[in-house]
């Protein structure tokens, strides 16, 4: 059945369009989604998933189990960058190690969304509060990484550094803010709002996701070149760390008594790496770090790995354990 999952996922339109995007670059086609369309598509996806999550919470209500899960999510998001940092320090400068640690400690909303679509395709249910978990997991890694950086690095170019700004970049950057906001609005407007918005937020969702992943494929392929600089160590890191995170997340989810769907999303969150919120924050608070390392790693290695091989793999394991 693992194989079926793999193939089933592979034949999923969003994944296929991601491949089409990769292919476009390899055959040197001039296909591209012009700016600022990718930006607005990603805002749409955050908007839609946020509302869905909020409506889900409004429906399910708020139990202690939810609180525990959210706490666990926050903890994972703060611990992952710690051990990631020390692994990376073996080969990299403090700045680069910290920035990459933040990247992998935080999450990728699009990976989460693709995973959620994958679940819906398999009609496995998941709790709306997992979206809240996602939102909560975006920021802690940024703070942790900057702390590590400033503790360990000699040159702190303190001149233009400000904790207030970092705080804002971490918690109020556009994507975090929009997910959180839509989530709250979803909770407030509840069923009534949901039905009014369903055609926009649910029905056309998969289609927009396909379009967005087409662009992601193009961008990822373009960034592949930078990986030469990254080298074997970082390439391996980009695959092994997610698997490692998953290996921690799955038992933890089991211990927390999460449903299969929720456990899967929790795992994918821990395994995913950020390429929207974190790079922007790192660029501003750890300028010494080289974006041509941390962006292509998450975008051109970890993201494809997770949505192609990771998702079916994690779910297969979860199915084994839960059943």
């Amino acid at each position, binding site marked *: 059945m693992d194989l079926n999952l793999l193939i089933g996922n592979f034949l999923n339109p969003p994944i296929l369009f991601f491949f089409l995007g990769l292919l476009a670059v390899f055959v040197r086609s001039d296909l591209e989604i012009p*700016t600022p369309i990718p930006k607005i598509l*990603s805002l749409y996806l955050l908007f839609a998933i946020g509302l869905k999550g909020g409506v889900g919470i409004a429906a399910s209500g708020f139990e202690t189990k939810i609180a525990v899960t959210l706490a666990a999510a926050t903890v994972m998001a703060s611990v992952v960058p710690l051990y990631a940092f020390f692994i990376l320090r073996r080969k990299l400068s403090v700045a680069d190690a910290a920035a990459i640690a933040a990247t992998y400690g935080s999450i990728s909303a699009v990976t989460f969304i693709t995973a959620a679509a994958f679940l819906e395709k398999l009609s496995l249910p998941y709790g709306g509060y997992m979206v809240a978990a996602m939102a909560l997991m975006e920021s802690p890694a940024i703070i942790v990484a900057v702390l590590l950086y400033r503790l360990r690095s000699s040159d702190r170019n303190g001149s233009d550094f400000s904790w207030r700004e970092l705080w804002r970049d971490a918690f109020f950057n556009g994507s975090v803010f929009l997910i959180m906001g839509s989530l709250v609005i979803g909770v407030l407007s509840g069923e009534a709002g949901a039905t009014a918005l369903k055609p926009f937020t649910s029905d056309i969702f998969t289609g927009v996701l396909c379009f967005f992943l087409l662009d992601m494929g*193009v961008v990822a392929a*373009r960034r592949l070149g*930078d990986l030469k600089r990254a080298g074997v160590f970082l390439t391996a890191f980009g695959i092994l760390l997610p698997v490692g995170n998953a290996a921690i997340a799955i038992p933890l989810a089991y211990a927390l008594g999460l449903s299969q769907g929720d456990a899967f999303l929790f795992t994918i969150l821990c395994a995913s790496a950020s390429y929207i919120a974190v790079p922007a924050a790192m*660029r501003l608070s750890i300028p*010494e770090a080289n974006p041509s390392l941390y*962006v292509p790693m998450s975008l051109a290695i970890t993201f494809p790995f997770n949505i192609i091989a990771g998702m079916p793999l994690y779910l297969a394991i979860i199915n084994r354990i839960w059943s």
Partner: protein
Amino acid sequence: MMPVKRIEIIVDELEVPKVLKLLDEAGVSGYTVIKDATGKGDRGLRGGDDLTGVFANSYIMTACPPGEKLDFIVEALRPILKQRGGVCLVSDAHWIIH
């Protein structure tokens, strides 16, 4: 027509607020910003193709009278350009006074 220095600055989209703050502090009469300038430099290709603004440039132009202001701006920009990359060109122009 008043002789002025035309300062062109190309930096990360993310650095723009900082640079503009600096220009305001320098007391320039104004500035013009063109977003989504792509390009290539020491830090490699800068497609405007990303969601982060990390790889996107902006183009900033300001005209200011030669003298202290100019020097202030140039000196204040140097460290930013040094640390974050980017380019700053200064050329001569005449401003049509209205």
